[in-house]
């Protein structure tokens, strides 16, 4: 295999695939990226951790000799990143166990390779459901739910975003849900064509993170195809195939409260800034911020036995509340995670000081958040 490619092109392609590679690997081949150059002038890069495989195809490469090999992904990326702008990079692998030579200008290196036959191939199988989402829509679905994904290993079925088709008031929607037991995020988009028969799937956290990075760069449609065990995303020249979490997502609808009738609406910026200031009193992340709500008045406060206490008042200029007074506590970070996804105005729907609370963006009905209060 021998080909020449622009440094920028190679770097971009490597960046797309290399982050899938785990930093610590017990299986050496998983640290490598598969590099293939075809007669047609296409460079193909593949990296996998056996759960996710990312493939990038770069057309228009000058291929002198077609062939395939595997080389350490992190090293190759690091070298390419440090080559000068505008450099032409030549990769040359004579075959077999011989090292892979990389030359660019006066720089030359040789990298140890591992046999292509050892590289695990991830077969995607049959993916009966296919549909397309705008990149912006997919980004929204991810951003508004990702923070609520659980990291707790015993309930592995919470370690991802649950995506499924359902109907809301008769209208079909695509719904994304994530929860860690303390908070829940539920976002809906109109159901895209072709998605109606889709099975409910749990997309693992790492896949979500990779996907989010890949979706950042494009405005095009992203093509999804899935079965109940695998999902494939085609984003421009990149293809991501991932296993899905094999588990049953909880019946989350049963924990979303109905009839929370005490409504507080508050300016988002004023609120989230106040939360940050008040919460700064405590270095302990799990300490609650207390919300004391009265007629058109919201007092945020926090106390720490070591550091003292802090409070801030938000009044009628930014607060609207007419129901009975209420006190309730939430973990500061949980509040910030949600307000980060909200535009101008945050709306809270309380039942009482100890029951789950609903949070929404006043201008957007498609996203709903549920927060468990903490004792204060």
């Amino acid at each position: 295999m021998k080909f020449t490619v622009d440094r920028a092109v190679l770097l971009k392609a490597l960046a797309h695939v290399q982050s899938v590679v785990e930093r610590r690997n017990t299986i050496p081949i998983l640290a490598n990226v598969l590099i293939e150059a075809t007669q047609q002038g296409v460079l193909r890069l593949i990296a996998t951790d056996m759960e996710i495989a990312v493939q990038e195809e770069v057309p228009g490469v000058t291929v002198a000799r077609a062939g395939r090999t595997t080389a350490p992904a992190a090293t190759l990326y690091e070298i390419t990143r440090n080559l000068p702008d505008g450099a032409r990079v030549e990769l040359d692998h004579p075959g077999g166990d011989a090292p892979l030579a990389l030359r660019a200008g006066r720089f030359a290196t040789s990298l140890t390779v591992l046999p292509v036959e050892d590289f695990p191939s991830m077969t995607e199988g049959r993916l009966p459901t296919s549909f397309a989402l705008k990149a912006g829509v997919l980004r929204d679905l991810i951003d508004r739910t990702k923070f609520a994904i659980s990291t707790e290993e015993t309930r592995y079925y919470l370690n991802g975003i649950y995506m499924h088709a359902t109907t809301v008031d008769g209208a079909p929607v695509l719904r994304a849900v994530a929860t860690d037991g303390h908070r829940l995020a539920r976002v809906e988009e109109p159901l895209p064509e072709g998605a109606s028969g889709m099975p409910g799937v749990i997309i693992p956290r790492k896949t979500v993170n990779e996907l989010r990075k890949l979706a950042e760069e494009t405005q095009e449609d992203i093509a999804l195809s899935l079965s109940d065990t695998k999902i494939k995303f085609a984003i421009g020249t990149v293809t991501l195939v991932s296993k899905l979490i094999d588990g049953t997502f909880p019946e989350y609808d049963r924990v979303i409260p109905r009839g929370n009738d005490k409504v507080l609406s508050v300016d988002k910026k004023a609120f989230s800034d106040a939360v940050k200031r008040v919460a700064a009193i405590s270095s302990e992340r799990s300490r609650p911020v207390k919300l004391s709500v009265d007629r058109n008045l919201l007092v945020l406060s926090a106390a720490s036995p070591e550091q003292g206490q802090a409070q801030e008042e938000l009044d009628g200029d930014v607060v609207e509340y007419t129901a009975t007074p209420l006190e309730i506590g939430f973990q500061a970070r949980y509040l910030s995670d949600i307000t980060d996804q909200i535009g101008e105005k945050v709306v809270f729907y309380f039942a009482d000081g100890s029951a789950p609370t609903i949070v929404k963006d006043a201008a957007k009905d498609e996203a709903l958040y549920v927060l468990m209060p903490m004792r204060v």
Partner: protein
Amino acid sequence: MGALCRDCFWTGAAGATGAACATGATAAGPCPVCAGRRVVRHAEVLTLALAHVDCDAFYASVEKRDRPELLTRPVIVGGGTRGVVAACCYIARTRGVRSAMPMWKALAACPDAEVIRPDIGKYVREGRRIRELMESLTPMVQPLSIDEAVLDLRGTEALHGAPPAAVLARFARRVEQEVGVTVSVGLAANRLMAKLAAERDKPRGFSVIGAAEAAGWLAPQPVGLLPGIGPAMEKRLVGAGFATLGQLAALDAREAARRFGDEGPALAARARGEDARSVDPARGTKSVSAETTFDADMTDLEALERPLWRMCEKLARRLREKGLCAGGVVLKLKTAAFASRTRTVRLPGATLLPEVIFAAAQGLLRREADGTAFRLIGVGAQPLLPADRADQADLADPGAPRRVAKWRAVEALRARFGDDAIGAGRGFPPKR
């Protein structure tokens, strides 16, 4: 040289007292006041203030108190032919019976022993009475088990008008008179040495190891003497050429770390008799558990789940009694070949529900029930959390409120009609 009479609580500087001095009986002999023979003489006896108090053969002593006809007979407290010895009196010990020994082995060594089924409730009550006596001496009491505690008596001399040693001797007498069991007291400069001192002179002992002599006293002792060095560790140490604590003590921190890893320097320090742990009254209970030994070994997962469920119910009850709940679950198994297996799992949320404890323990058990025959199953709670943290609402567990309500209903029925009024089917043997 200080001296303390354990009978009349006289304290003085042995050698300076007129009578003793005149006869030249400075370092030995009876008490100059009451002529009692139980005199403790030690350079530091009147200044040391850290004590380890341990009841002697506690369960067996309580039983002997209640059945005086057993006073001269070997008594073993334990369960069934398949159980283990929970406690044995000193007569039984002379025949080779030891605590935690399997019952059949104990009975082989001592066939005429009186075997008594343990009545834990009674021991807890008596243990509590002893603890109250301790707490009347100082608030700085850290219970280590039902019948064992460490006391920090520093700063109490003015209050009691006597040095800690005399206060402890008086306390030992009160326990004998009021509770009817004997205790052994170890007095030293730190917790480690106090424990070793208490063990050195049992039963009804009073032993002092001074700060000055700690290292010297430890040096010739076998490494297994040190709490925390079990048989496996001892074997490893002896294999590495460390048979005595003196050899361990000689290691500098770096060498100790090189040989024994992160724990090495602490190990060497303890071998020198150093221990910086303080007495912390808040750190009472470290674990709560329940376990049972089977009449016949069990292999089958389904069969094992029945006693597991019963232990989960028992554990939940014990937790509630102590005002605690489980943040995680420990499964303990002992194979027919006496190998212990413990497996732990953290719970997503703390609980007091037997059902939730069971589900977690069951998950652990499934991985262990691989055809191995087991003789014992147990379940414990770790970490322990305050009971008010239990069973809080969980957005990822829509079934939780119903489970809590169901368990409350079960408890209400039991409170009214007795524990046997209602129970989960999984606790009962299958119909034939």
